[in-house]
C-alpha cells in the first residue's frame, strides 16, 4: 500500500508550484506534445541541441502535480546530456517509477529519485512518464504528438 507522503514528496510539491524551464522555446531544434487522454493532461516539450548534446529543454502545459513536477525536473536533468545519455536516464527513471530499479541504482538518478513513491501508485506511472515520452519524441521525430495510451 502506497503512502501519500512518499508520492507527494516536498521536492515534487515545490516543482509543481514553481516549475523550472516552464516556457515555450522560439528557436527550438525539436518539439513534441505529450497527451494523456485518460486524464486530459497535455504538455509540450521543446529542446535546443548542440550537436548530439541537449543544450536546453523547456516545457509548458496542463497536468497533475506528478506530471508537472516530473517535466520540471526532467528539463533540468537532461541539460548537457547526449541523446544516448538522456535515453539511458529515461530507461532508468521508468524502472524507478514502475518499481523495477535495483536500490543501488537510484543514486545515478539524482533528484529524479524523489519519484520513487510513484511505483506504489501504478495509475500515476503515466503521469510521471508523460514528459519523458514527449522528450523522446522531440529527439527522434520532432513535431510529433505522443500519447501515453
Amino acid at each position, binding site marked *: *500500500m502506497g503512502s*501519500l507522503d512518499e*508520492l*507527494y514528496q516536498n521536492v515534487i*510539491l515545490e516543482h*509543481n*508550484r514553481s516549475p523550472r524551464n516552464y516556457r515555450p522555446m522560439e528557436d527550438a531544434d525539436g518539439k513534441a506534445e505529450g497527451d494523456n487522454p*485518460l*486524464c*486530459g*493532461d*497535455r504538455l509540450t516539450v521543446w529542446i535546443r541541441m548542440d550537436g548530439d548534446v541537449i543544450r536546453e529543454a523547456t516545457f509548458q502545459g*496542463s*497536468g*497533475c*502535480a*506528478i506530471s508537472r513536477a516530473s517535466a520540471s525536473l526532467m528539463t533540468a536533468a537532461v541539460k548537457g546530456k547526449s541523446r544516448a545519455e538522456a535515453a539511458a536516464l529515461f530507461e532508468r527513471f521508468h524502472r524507478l517509477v514502475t518499481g523495477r530499479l535495483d536500490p543501488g541504482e537510484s543514486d545515478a538518478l539524482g533528484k529524479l529519485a524523489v519519484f520513487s513513491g510513484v511505483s506504489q*501508485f501504478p495509475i*500515476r506511472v503515466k*503521469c510521471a512518464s508523460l514528459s519523458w515520452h514527449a522528450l523522446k519524441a522531440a529527439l527522434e521525430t520532432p513535431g510529433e504528438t505522443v500519447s501515453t495510451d
Partner: protein
Amino acid sequence: MAAPSLSPSGLTAQLDVNRVRADFPILARRVRGKPLVYLDNAATGQKPRAVIDAITRFYSAENANIHRGVHHLSEQATVAYEAVREKVARFLHAPSSREIIFTSGTTEAINLVAQSYGRTALRPGDEVLITGMEHHSNIVPWQLACEATGATLKAVPVTDGGELDLEAFERLLTERTRLLALGHVSNALGTINPVRLMAARARALGVPVLVDGAQAAPHLGLDVQALDCDFYAFSGHKLFGPTGVGVLYGREALLERMPPWKGGGDMIASVTLARSTWAPLPAKFEAGTPMIAQVIGLGAAIDYVEAVGLPAIAAWEHELLRTATEQVSEVEGVRLIGTAREKASVLSFVMDGVHPHDVGAVLDDEGVAIRAGHHCAQPVMARFGVPATVRASFAFYNTPDEVDVLVRGLRRVRKVFAA
C-alpha cells in the same frame, strides 16, 4: 451511527440508511486502512446481496441456455429470463415487453439505434440533434451514423449554469432533424434535462426521440409513456445490477420497421443459404446467446430498488446532494461545474491550483472513492474550459457522515498543496 434525520418534512423517513447499507457487503470494507466512502456511483453502483445471490443461485442451480432446449433447466431459464423482460417493461412503464431489448449496456443500446435506425433513416442533408452535455456514448455512435449516411450532427449548447439552452434548441430543431438524442441526467454535470418538454417539441415535428437514461435509472422513477420518447436506454450496472447488461426500450412501430443490426442465432425465423427472415420482436435484436445470468441479476436489482422505493431514494439523495453542495462549496478554492436548478446525484467541481487527479489521490488516501477526469464527456470539459473535474456522485446508501469525510479530505487537499 444513528440514522440521520435529513428532512423536517419527513419525506426521507421511509429510507433507513443503516438498513440499506447492511444489504451491500462491499460497504463494510476498508480502503487504505479507512472505511470505504464510495462516491463514484455515476461510474457504477455497488451490488446488494440480493443481486449477488441471484447470480450465484442461477449458476449454482439453474444455469442453461434459453429459447432452445426442451429440457427442464432450459425451460426454467427461459421463463426466468423472459420474466425479467416483463419486469423491465413495468419498471419503464412500457406498453409492451416486446419493446424491451436486452443489450450489453447503454452504449450498445444507443449503437443499436444509430446503426439500425440511423443508417436506414438518414440521408444526406438530414440532421441528428444531440446536446453539448452528452456522454461520448451518445455522441460517437451518431458521428459514425452521420459519416456513413452524409447526415449532419448538431448539438444544443449548454449554458454557464450547465443547463440546455432551450431557445437554441427551438432554433436547432427543424424540418431537417431526423432524430433527437439526449441524456436524461448528465453524468458530468448532474443536470436533469427537461426531456418531457423537449420530446414534445420534437414529436410535434414528427422527430423521434432517444433518451440516454444511464444516469437517470438509479435515481428517478422512469415512465417512457409520460416522457413520450421513442427510445430509452439504460445500464444494469449503474442500477446496482451486474455489468454486461442493459436495456433498450423502443416504440414498437419503429422497432418493427428497423432492420436487425447483428445477425446470428435466436434472431431469425428461418435461414436458407440464400436468405433469412427475422424473428418477431424483441428476438430480432437479440442475436446469439444473451447475458442470461446478468439479466437475472438485473431483475433482482430492480426488485431491490423498488422495495427500497424510488420516491424514498430520490428524496434521500436530494437532501444528500443539497448538503454536499453546500459544504463542498465552502471549501476554499472550490468551483462547482454544473449548477443547474434540477440536478441528481452528481457534484462536479474543480479546485483552484490543484489538478483533479491530485485531489483524487488525497481523497483515496482517506478511503474516499471519487472520479477525477473528463467523465467521457470531453465536450463538456471544453465548454467549461477545464481539462477535467472531480466528481462525487451519490447513491441512496451514502450518508451525511460520508459527506463530512469528503469535505475533511478536501481540506487536507488544500493543506497538502498549499502554496
